[in-house]
């Protein structure tokens, strides 16, 4: 079961149009993508990535989504998904982000891995990931959905580049042995109030597991992770809808902090 070229082109067109007109579209499932046809959803994502690269956008890494068992259950899946990170999706720590650029923005705190070696294996151990990791950074992922009301199924979010929008990296690299990635506490604060809390184990038991999954999935797809890639390994706590004008600060125990500031609605 797989979708035809025309259907794929229509899915790409709808997602692009949603972003360009800043108007979310209806879910793609059923009308374009058969429910559960994750392979076709990735084909849509890949077509969009190819168009973006052709337009000059630079790929800098990948993001892992659906790393929390409760979220997986919600979407009826038993594994994570991934999307592509482009250089123009990065915002500086504390810099203002134009809230109107992102459709239905939400924020979540994550551990970012920066690779020092390629991970070209289709069978990957945690030891491979440890050896390939150059350093870690605290990160805020700003997710968004081109699908109206975040009414997503697995095929909707996969086609939509795993609901990615932007990301913010902290500035102080930390070595892997200096963080307890399973037990590290995470708090995302808005005006000094914790709005999301969690711990490393919330991400597939350990963010290292998520990166190992991504490495083998990307290698199997023929686009293996490379030295220099930035990997957003998955949320450590629930995602939080963005309030225009707000500042969010994520702190991860052992990793330091990172913030993002949103413009008001007027821009």
């Amino acid at each position: 079961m797989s979708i035809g070229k025309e259907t794929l082109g229509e899915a790409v067109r709808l997602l692009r149009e949603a972003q360009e007109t800043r108007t979310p579209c209806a879910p793609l499932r059923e009308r374009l993508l058969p429910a559960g046809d994750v392979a076709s959803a990735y084909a849509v994502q890949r077509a969009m990535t190819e168009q973006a690269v052709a337009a000059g956008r630079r790929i800098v890494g990948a993001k892992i989504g659906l790393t929390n068992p409760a979220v997986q259950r919600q979407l009826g899946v038993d594994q994570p998904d991934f999307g592509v990170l482009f250089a123009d999706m990065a915002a500086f720590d504390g810099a203002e982000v134009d809230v109107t650029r992102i459709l239905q923005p939400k924020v979540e705190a994550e551990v970012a891995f920066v690779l020092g070696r390629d991970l070209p294996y289709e069978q990957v151990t945690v030891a491979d990931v440890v050896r390939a990791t150059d350093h870690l950074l605290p990160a805020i992922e700003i997710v968004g959905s081109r699908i109206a009301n975040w009414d997503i199924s697995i095929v909707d979010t996969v086609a939509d580049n795993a609901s990615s929008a932007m990301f913010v990296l902290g500035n102080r690299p930390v070595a892997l042995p200096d963080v307890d990635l399973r037990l590290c506490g995470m708090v995302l604060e808005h005006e000094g109030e914790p709005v999301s809390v969690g711990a490393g184990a919330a991400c597939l038991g350990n963010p290292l597991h998520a990166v190992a999954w991504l490495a083998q999935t990307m290698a199997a797809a023929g686009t293996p992770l490379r030295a220099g890639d930035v990997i957003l390994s998955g949320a450590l706590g629930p995602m939080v809808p963005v309030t225009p004008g707000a500042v969010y600060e994520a702190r991860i125990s052992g990793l330091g902090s990172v913030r993002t500031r949103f413009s008001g609605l007027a821009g």
Partner: protein
Amino acid sequence: MSISEMAVLLDDAAVDATAIPQLTLSHELDVDGAYAVQEALIARRLDRGQRLVGVKMGLTSRAKMAQVGVHEVIWGRLTDAMAVPDGGELSLDGFIHPRVEPEIAFLLGENGIAAVAPALEIIDSRYADFQFTHPDVVADNTSGAAFVIGAWQPMPAGVDNLGVLLEVDGKVVQAGSTAAILGDPRRALTEGRALTARHGLALEPGWVFLAGAATAAVPLTPGAHVRAVVETIGTASLKVSR
């Protein structure tokens, strides 16, 4: 119904492990009155030979406030009969619908905090369906039922964002942070001193202070092995009898 009659109702409900209707369904009770009921309830247990060994904070996190629908920090009393040794066995016979949550505990010293430990708190509302209003839960000793304290550790420089896991049979069922406790569990102690003082109770050196839950509570089931893990602090565990 008088304060002491309400205390008898709640005390009997706990002793018989039988849920009762919320007091506020049929009686006028405000929060101050509810703390008077709690004091009378605990006085009955002290008369039976139990000892006051500390206090516990409740509803110190947004998750918890949302779970029970009460939006103010509350406190209750701990007696020695509620203590379960770390790694010990707990029978559910004496409980109605017990839930467990991972916490952080402070040992109170002459000057502030003497030590810190991971902890498990078992809560068990004496009200039907675990449903209550703010005065109801205060009168019911803030659902307090039992607690486990892990090994005491020296207080680290910061306890404001330690990862906290709740494991059942080796599986992580909740993941959170001590930041869930009012942003920093030390704030719970400041609040606790002020709130208890308002009702004539001064916290004493040697007492245990349960600062509040770091995650949502989960039901306790027969045979379960339950463990709280706190980043850099350690673990506290219990085994539920079959």
